C-alpha cells in the first residue's frame, strides 16, 4: 500500500484540475474559470523567484493578482507550490476559510495583494517597483496579472502611461485576454502599452513554451507586457 502525504508531496500541472475540483466539486471547468491557469502555472513553476519559505524576503519576486475574480486557478497553483495547504481548498468561500471568492493578502500566504475590485493591482505594482528601486533592490521583479476587460478601468491607464516614461524595467504585466471586454480596446491591447513605451509580446496563453519565452524576453530600460490570448469567454 502506498500512502501519499499531502503535506510533503509535490504537484505537477496535471494535478491542477483535481485541486480546482476540491473547490468547485467539478473537474470539468469552463474556459473562463481556467483562463489564467496556464499563465499562473508557468509563472510559479518556471519564472517567479519566490517560495513558501521566503515570503518575507525583500529580494523575492512579487506576483500581484489584480484580476481577483475566479481565483480557483490561483489557489490551486498556490496549493500545488506549497504556499497554502491543500486541505484549505474544500472550504473555499466559507465563513471560516481564508480562501474567498476574491483573495485577501492578510489571509492567504503568498498573496502579495488583496484584489477583487478591478484596476488596483497595476498602480500598486508601480509603487512596489518604485519602492524596490528606492531601496537598491534591483533583482526582484514585479509581476501583475490583469484581465482584458479589467483594462476598461481608467486606473490602469494612469499606471501604464506613467510606467513607460519612468523606465520601470522591473515591472511586468501579463494581460489574460479572453475577449471578455464588451468594447474591445481600439487598436488592440499590446498597442496601448506600446504607445506608452512598454516592451510587448502577444502569445498563445495555453502554450507553455511560448509563455515562458515571452515571460523571460529581455526588455532593457522598459516595462514589459505579455498579452496571453486564450479562448473567448463567450465561446
Amino acid at each position, binding site marked *: 500500500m502506498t500512502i501519499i502525504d499531502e503535506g510533503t508531496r509535490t504537484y505537477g500541472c496535471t494535478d491542477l484540475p483535481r485541486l480546482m475540483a476540491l473547490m468547485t466539486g467539478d473537474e470539468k471547468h469552463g474556459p473562463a474559470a481556467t483562463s489564467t491557469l496556464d499563465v499562473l502555472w508557468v509563472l510559479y513553476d518556471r519564472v517567479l523567484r519566490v517560495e513558501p519559505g521566503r515570503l518575507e524576503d*525583500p529580494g523575492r519576486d512579487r506576483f500581484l493578482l489584480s484580476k481577483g475574480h475566479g481565483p480557483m486557478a490561483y489557489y490551486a497553483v498556490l496549493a500545488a507550490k506549497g504556499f497554502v495547504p491543500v486541505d484549505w481548498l474544500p472550504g473555499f468561500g466559507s465563513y471560516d476559510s481564508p480562501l474567498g471568492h476574491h483573495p*485577501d*493578502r*492578510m489571509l492567504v500566504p503568498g498573496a*502579495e*495583494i*488583496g484584489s477583487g*475590485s478591478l*484596476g*488596483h493591482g*497595476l*498602480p*500598486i*505594482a*508601480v*509603487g*512596489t*517597483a*518604485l*519602492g*524596490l*528601486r*528606492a*531601496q537598491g*533592490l534591483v533583482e526582484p521583479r514585479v509581476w501583475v496579472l490583469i484581465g482584458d476587460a479589467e483594462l476598461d478601468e*481608467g*486606473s490602469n491607464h*494612469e*499606471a501604464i*502611461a*506613467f510606467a513607460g516614461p519612468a523606465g520601470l524595467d522591473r515591472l511586468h504585466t501579463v494581460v489574460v485576454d479572453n475577449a471578455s471586454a464588451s468594447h474591445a480596446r481600439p487598436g488592440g491591447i499590446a498597442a496601448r502599452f506600446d504607445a506608452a513605451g512598454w516592451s510587448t509580446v502577444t502569445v498563445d496563453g495555453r502554450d507553455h513554451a511560448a509563455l515562458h519565452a515571452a515571460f523571460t524576453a529581455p526588455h532593457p530600460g522598459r516595462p514589459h507586457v505579455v498579452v496571453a490570448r486564450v479562448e473567448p469567454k463567450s465561446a
Partner: protein
Amino acid sequence: MDTMRDRFAPVISRLLDEDPRVAVVLAEIGVDGFADARGRHPDRVINVGIREQLLIGTGAGLALTGLRPVVHTFASFLVERPFEQVKLDLGHQGVGAVLVSAAASFDWPAGGYTHMAPGDVALLDTVDGWTVHVPGHPDEAETLLRQAVAADDDKVYVRLSVQSNAHGLPVDGARLRTVREGRAGVVLAVGPTLDAVLDATEGIDVTVLYATTVRPLDTAALRRATESAGTDVVLVEPYLAGTSTATVNDALSHVPHRVLGLGVGRRELRRYGTVEEHVAAHGLDARSLRERIAGFVAGAR
C-alpha cells in the same frame, strides 16, 4: 505669517534626508517645493503626474516594500477622488501612509466648489484605523507632520489649511488641551477655529477645549471636562458640520447630554470671494458663533 503648507515641503525634505524609509508621492501639485529634495533623493521623491488613483496606489506599493510614503495633493483629489484606493490600497491591504492635504474646506474660494473638500474627515470616518490631525497653526502643523511620519505604519491624515490661529499652542498628537474653564457647557474647537471660538465665548461661562487630533478623539478628556462644566457640548469644526457629533454622543452615552455640531454647511453656496466671506456664510465667524453657542447653552435652562 507663513502658511502650514509653506512648512510642508521643508519639513518633509528634512525627513527625507534623515530617514531612508521616507518617500514622497505627488501628483504635480506641490512639486516645486521638492525640487532640491528630488535632486538629493531622486528615487524617493516621485511625481506621478495628474493621476490621483495612481497617486494612492503608488503610495500603497511603496508601503508594501517597507517604505513610509507621504502622499500630498489638495484634499478633494487626495481623499475624495481616489477614495476607493484609500479604502482598498491602504486599508484593505493592511499598509499605512501619511496623507497630507492642502486647500481644506474652502482655502481657495475663488476656485469654487471643485477645490473644496469639507467632507474629507467625514469620509475617512467610514473606514477603520485613521489618525486625523487638524493643526490650527503652522507651528502645530510642523509638529504633527513629524509625528505622522514617525507613527510606524499607521494611516495618518494631516489636514493643512491657510486658515490659522494667531499663535500656535503645544500639541502632542493625541490629547485635547483645555484653554478655558467654565461651568455652563463645553465648547470643543478644532484646529483653525480656536481664535474665533475664544472671541465668541468671551464672557460666557464655558470650558473651551482645543483639538488638533480629532481621530481618535481624546474622549476621556472630553468626559472629564463635562464633569465640571456639564454635558452641553458644542463642536466647532472647520469641515462638515456634525462630523464628530456621533463620536461625542458615543463618548457621553452614559449620561444625558446635548450636542450642537457647528461647521461647514452641506449646501453648495455657489459663491467665490474670500475665505472670510465663506467663514461668515457658514456661520463660523466669532459673532455668529457667539449667538449660536450662547443660545444653545442658555437653552438648556
